[in-house]
């Protein structure tokens, strides 16, 4: 459901992806390496972390190889992960362990990946198991979870007289306006050009504190009606832009460039995941600013007097169905998720239930935010994706939100009401075709 394509991996991705097609060790027939086989031999792991493929990941692999002698783990870093791996999937040669591309619909999971166990059984051990599950079978385990909210420069907000996270959209807008008036900073940076950060407006569903929302969402033919979730989140984006609280020319924004900007206080706010906090702090250190200025705030909306922030697994790792060495692949997956310490190293939420939150998120939770894990849709599983495809409204993406920003800043015809009515109509038309 959530197409979070980029976390941490967007760090300076200088390492080139290996040429597709050199997935060497992954060949072999379908059946010779059932999960019951011996843990030995070589496996290939596909990763989107081009920045870690030559450094941190081989270090993990060494530990694994020490625990299981006779194994060898090779990494294949893929720069354009979604696109390239989707193409590899259809060719049948896609490594032994890989992250599930979001292009794979939930009902297709069984076609490409090995089932890892039943949802019931794994739920007791891991978080986020239902996000890549179908028919009670889990196909992917999260390698680290993130919380959703605003990355802010605390110092700038303080200069505008605001020290605690605003609790309503109105208070938030007023705060941004004050920043514009009293500091030289850009109140809110959209990252319009790169686009994907706009998708985080889709990750705020937990604010309504309704655990069934993922099932209810595709059942609703008009989610852009006042009071509904898209009206609240997309509406806030519209108002921010309409009030002129964003950068001067959204067409020339730059993700890499935005990190030092928020770190040094040229930008006050961005909507991202908690994974961005360590990157921004690193940018602050690099720019000679104070990393403690960077904080993480919840979306300005309270239900029952409390903030709710969605936590979710990022990419889920899975065992390839066409792998020739499934035993080793499974052993690596389990080891990586449970014992490697990868999530902790990345300041992500550990996937195993019961392991402590990283310090940054602990602080976030301590401000009174309830972290909510939203169960994936069950009765309407996969329907939301189908409506998205049919209507070409990329809820988790940026195409229709760029248009929304254009309308809000007066660069395209329309108003908030006319555009939301149009979205409701397009969504409704597709809805009636998909949900009949």
């Amino acid at each position, binding site marked *: 459901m959530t197409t979070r394509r980029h976390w941490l991996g967007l760090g300076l991705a200088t390492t080139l992806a290996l040429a597709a097609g050199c997935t060497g060790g992954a060949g072999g027939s379908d059946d010779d390496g059932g999960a019951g086989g011996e843990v030995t031999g070589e496996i290939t792991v596909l990763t989107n972390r081009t920045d870690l493929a030559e450094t941190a990941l081989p270090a993990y692999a060494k530990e694994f190889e020490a625990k299981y002698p006779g194994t060898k783990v090779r990494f294949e870093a893929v720069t354009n992960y979604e*696109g390239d791996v*989707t193409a590899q*999937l*259809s060719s049948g040669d896609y490594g032994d362990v890989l992250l599930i591309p979001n*292009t*794979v*619909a939930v009902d*297709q999971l069984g*076609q490409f990946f090995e089932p890892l166990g039943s949802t019931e059984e794994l739920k007791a051990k891991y978080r986020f198991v239902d996000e890549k599950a179908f028919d009670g079978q889990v196909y992917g385990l999260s390698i680290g979870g993130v919380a959703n909210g605003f990355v802010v420069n605390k110092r700038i907000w303080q200069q505008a007289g605001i020290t605690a996270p605003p609790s309503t959209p109105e208070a938030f807008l007023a705060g941004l306006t004050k920043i514009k008036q009293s500091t030289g900073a850009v109140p809110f940076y959209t990252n*319009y*050009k790169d*686009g994907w950060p706009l998708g985080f407006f889709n990750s705020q569903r937990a604010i309504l504190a309704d655990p069934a929302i993922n099932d209810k969402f595709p059942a609703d033919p008009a989610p852009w009606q006042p009071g509904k979730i898209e009206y609240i989140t997309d509406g806030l984006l519209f108002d921010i832009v309409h009030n002129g609280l964003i950068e*001067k*020319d*959204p*067409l*020339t924004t730059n993700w890499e460039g935005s990190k030092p900007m928020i770190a040094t206080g040229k930008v006050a706010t961005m909507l991202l995941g908690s994974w961005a906090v360590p990157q921004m702090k690193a940018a602050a250190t690099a720019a000679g600013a104070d990393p403690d200025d960077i904080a993480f705030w919840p979306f300005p909306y309270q239900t029952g007097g409390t903030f709710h922030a969605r936590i979710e697994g990022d990419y889920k790792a899975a065992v390839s169905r066409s792998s020739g060495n499934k035993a080793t692949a499974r052993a690596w997956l389990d080891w990586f998720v449970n014992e490697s310490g990868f999530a902790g190293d990345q300041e992500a939420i550990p996937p195993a239930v019961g392991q402590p939150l990283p310090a940054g998120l602990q602080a976030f939770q301590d401000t009174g935010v309830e972290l909510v894990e939203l169960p994936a849709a069950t009765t309407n599983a996969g329907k939301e994706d189908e409506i*998205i*495809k049919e209507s*070409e409204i*990329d809820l988790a*993406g940026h*195409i229709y939100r*760029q*248009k929304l920003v*254009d309308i809000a800043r007066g*660069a*395209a015809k329309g108003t908030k009401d006319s555009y939301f009515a149009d979205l409701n109509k397009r969504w409704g038309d597709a809805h009636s075709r998909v949900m009949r």
Partner: protein
Amino acid sequence: MTALLSPPRPEVATKRPPRKKIPVHWFYLAPALILLITFTYVPVGNMVWYSFHKWDGLSPAMDPVGWDNYVRVFTDERYWRVFLISLYYFVASFAQIAIALYFAVILSFSTRFRNLFKGILFFPYLLNGVAVGFVFLYLFQPGGTLDSVLRLAGLGEHARLWLGDPDVANIALAGTSVWRFTGLSFVLFLGAIQSIPGEIYEAADLDGANRWHQFRYIIAPGIRRIISLSFILAISGSLAVFEIPFIMTGGANGTRTFVIQAYETAFQFRQIGLASSMAVVLLLLVLLITWIQRRLVPDDEVSLS
């Protein structure tokens, strides 16, 4: 001497039974044909096949939907409207051809630093399209190169959001495209002009023709075919614009071209069938326009004598 003119036929030849004819020419043609069929006609055939199905590119099942995809491309405004963006690039291609022709004519006569200018004009075409996109992204930034140059020239008040302003964005992108492809047209024209024999100019000079006359009566008719080819390239190119707007704006702010729309349909929304029908429509349009143009401008043999 006479014996040499009619040599006796060697006997062996008559005795040998008539050999079965092996179509040798197919062996020589085979590599080219195999490559052509595998990499051109089979994919096009696949594309046409996909265009009659609803398919997400991964699922083993393809649902046949008949002409539905085509009906959608022509009836849903979001799909055909993007063609209008091509008009910007089409208009720009006239500027491109005019500039290229102008410089090709000038530099085909003896001009100082001729080769240097040729190099300068051709250089942009050698750059990778992605690099061009990035370079111009910086050029068009607020306070970027273009704005600075305008300010230095005392025209600072004309600075604007070159990509952020929807009225200017497409013109800025079309301008980038002109910058990139002028070099190609220029080289084509230059080559054609230089193939015109020098004596003709000498004769024209003796007859008292000036440069304009030479252009009007010698060069223009002499390179008519190349000009016509340039127009075909310009039209099909402006229908199929992709990389420059894709890199610079990603199709945002009203700069989405037909090909960007097709790309998004195929790879963001996984509607391979619908996107294939868009591609087929584009292919047919280009063929149609080329055909019309060949009818309007018949391909006569060029003769200057």
